[in-house]
């Protein structure tokens, strides 16, 4: 197994004991190399925490996360960051970095403490911008971009890390329909053409159904089900996850499962 969490648990505020929150409880997931896995579940179900555990940004209280069979806990932050990149939900820098500066920050784990990026690093950053269709924005200030452009630049910055695994936290959450589709197509292209391994947390069941070959369904910090998208994404499962009655079927034109919510139960 390429990236695997084995019975991991994580509790916020465990150290202080003030209002501890069990975010992730005894969770095991297995991510295949080259797969595109969707992480689905209601707000507060532990998706973001699980992503941070998979990225090694948080260390599990118990259990372990392994990349290629090696425990992340035994690796330095830099070593992990060379292989695993994260695209957070939103990125708000405190200063007016240019787009190319944002992208080049992805080279951080590859550079020594006093090393400045060279022509090769610059080429990697420009290629990442080109792959996300943002090369023409390179000299613009990141803050002046639209939400969709910003998200694509952040994805480019993650690609500049030249990672083996890309972890995305609701990459389309604040985007309009057009940008949602654009980001979706970009992710599929990166996954298919460059065989990038991706894990994407999302609230958008239709996006997940159209992109992901595998789904992990979470509720209350635990995994309810995981497996092939067409097998696990059922109306029974949607009911169990969200307390929502939904019609789940393969759309004739789209060619993938679609979820139409019909109403809330109870």
């Amino acid at each position, binding site marked *: 197994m390429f990236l695997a969490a084995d019975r991991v648990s994580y509790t916020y505020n465990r150290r202080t004991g003030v209002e501890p929150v069990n975010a992730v409880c005894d969770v095991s997931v297995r991510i295949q190399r080259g797969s595109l896995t969707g992480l689905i579940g209601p707000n507060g179900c532990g998706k973001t925490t699980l992503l941070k555990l998979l990225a090694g940004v948080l260390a599990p209280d118990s259990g372990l996360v392994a990349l290629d069979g090696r425990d992340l806990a035994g690796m330095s932050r830099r070593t992990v960051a060379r292989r695993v990149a994260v695209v957070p939900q939103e*990125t708000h820098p*405190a*200063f007016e*970095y240019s787009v190319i500066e944002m992208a080049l920050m992805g080279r951080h784990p590859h*550079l020594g403490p006093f090393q400045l990026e060279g022509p090769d690093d610059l080429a*990697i950053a*420009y*290629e990442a911008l080109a792959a996300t269709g943002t090369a023409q924005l390179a000299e613009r200030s990141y803050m002046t971009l639209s939400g969709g452009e910003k998200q694509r630049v952040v994805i480019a910055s993650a690609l500049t890390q030249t*990672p083996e695994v890309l972890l995305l936290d609701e990459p389309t959450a604040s985007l309009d329909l057009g940008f949602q589709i654009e980001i979706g197509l970009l992710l599929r292209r990166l996954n298919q053409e*460059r065989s990038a391994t991706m894990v994407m947390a999302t609230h958008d069941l239709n996006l997940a159904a159209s992109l992901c070959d595998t789904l992990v369904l979470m509720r209350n910090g635990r995994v309810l089900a995981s497996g092939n998208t067409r097998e696990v994404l059922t109306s029974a499962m949607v009911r169990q996850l969200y307390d929502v009655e939904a019609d789940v079927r393969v759309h004739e034109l789209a060619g993938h499962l679609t979820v139409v919510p019909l109403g809330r139960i109870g």
Partner: protein
Amino acid sequence: MITLDSTDADGTPLKRRVVSSSIRGRLAATIAGFGTLAIATCALAPLVGTTPISLARALDPSIPFDQNVDAQIFFVARLPRVLAGALVGSTLATAGVVFQAMLRNPLATPFTLGVSAGASLGAMLVIVFGGVLTLGPISTVPAASLAGAAAATAMVYWLATRHGHALSTSVLLLAGVTLNSFLSAIIMFVQYFADFAQIYRAVRWIMGDLDVGGFDPLLASLPLAIVAFAMFALLPSSLNLLSVGKDAAAARGVDVARAQRLAFFSASVATAAAVSLAGPIGFIGIVVPHLVRLLVGVDHRIVLPASALFGAAFLVACDLLARTILAPVEVPVGVVTAMIGGPFFLWLLVRKS
């Protein structure tokens, strides 16, 4: 490995862009430019004053030093003051850069977290109650202000790390602001017990003064400044990522807890070195970083060294103004920096909103 080919999103070949200047070129140009400015300012500032002197005569080795009035004025009367300006200007400016990045707040200053209030209280206690106190060769006011700065730093650090080992920036800001006003209240209370002469000394100390009176105080502050700058050298690329966000920094390979600790302590040490030497000279830590960013962009690998050099030049120039603008009367340099910094600060706020 996700490898990338050289085609654009729509499949057209990517024209490899020619970047006008690499980071290496920009860094070299910045250091050369600001370095020349700093050296020129420090060399020329001692020549100006109520008694005009000539650099050629001051440096003329054929005249014995005890007969060379120009050399005596240059090296004994004016150079320590100029070098103090350079040291204080560069430490406060860089401390400002580091705090702003670490707190993700462009309006933070070296004094935001209470270091200077702690130093002021320390100085005040010695000025008011320490009449008979001596520490042998060590001058008591700088030593006390250093102790006050250290106590304030330790207090804020303890508050911000109580809930785990990572620094919470919001708690840091809150603790700093609270400590600042609390310590100011204690300073007022201490002042209540002071006589007129003590209050005069205390107020002059708080205004900030670079007339350090010789090389000894400079040499006492220098080790702290060197320690701070050595720590700063490790920081710049982590500061870029910290200013983007903690999670983003961690995901790009920064050890966030370690980088924040390094940033907090290096900037606190730098501030303490500056304040114990010359009192809390305001606005340098915010005016210089912002001017530098307007000139060279926001990359901390360039902003940090540029601010160190420009901060030195800026404070030496402000002090030159303070010495000459109302000559023979000297204006406290803190008043000059406030006169320039206040409006600049307001302009920044207005521009932001």
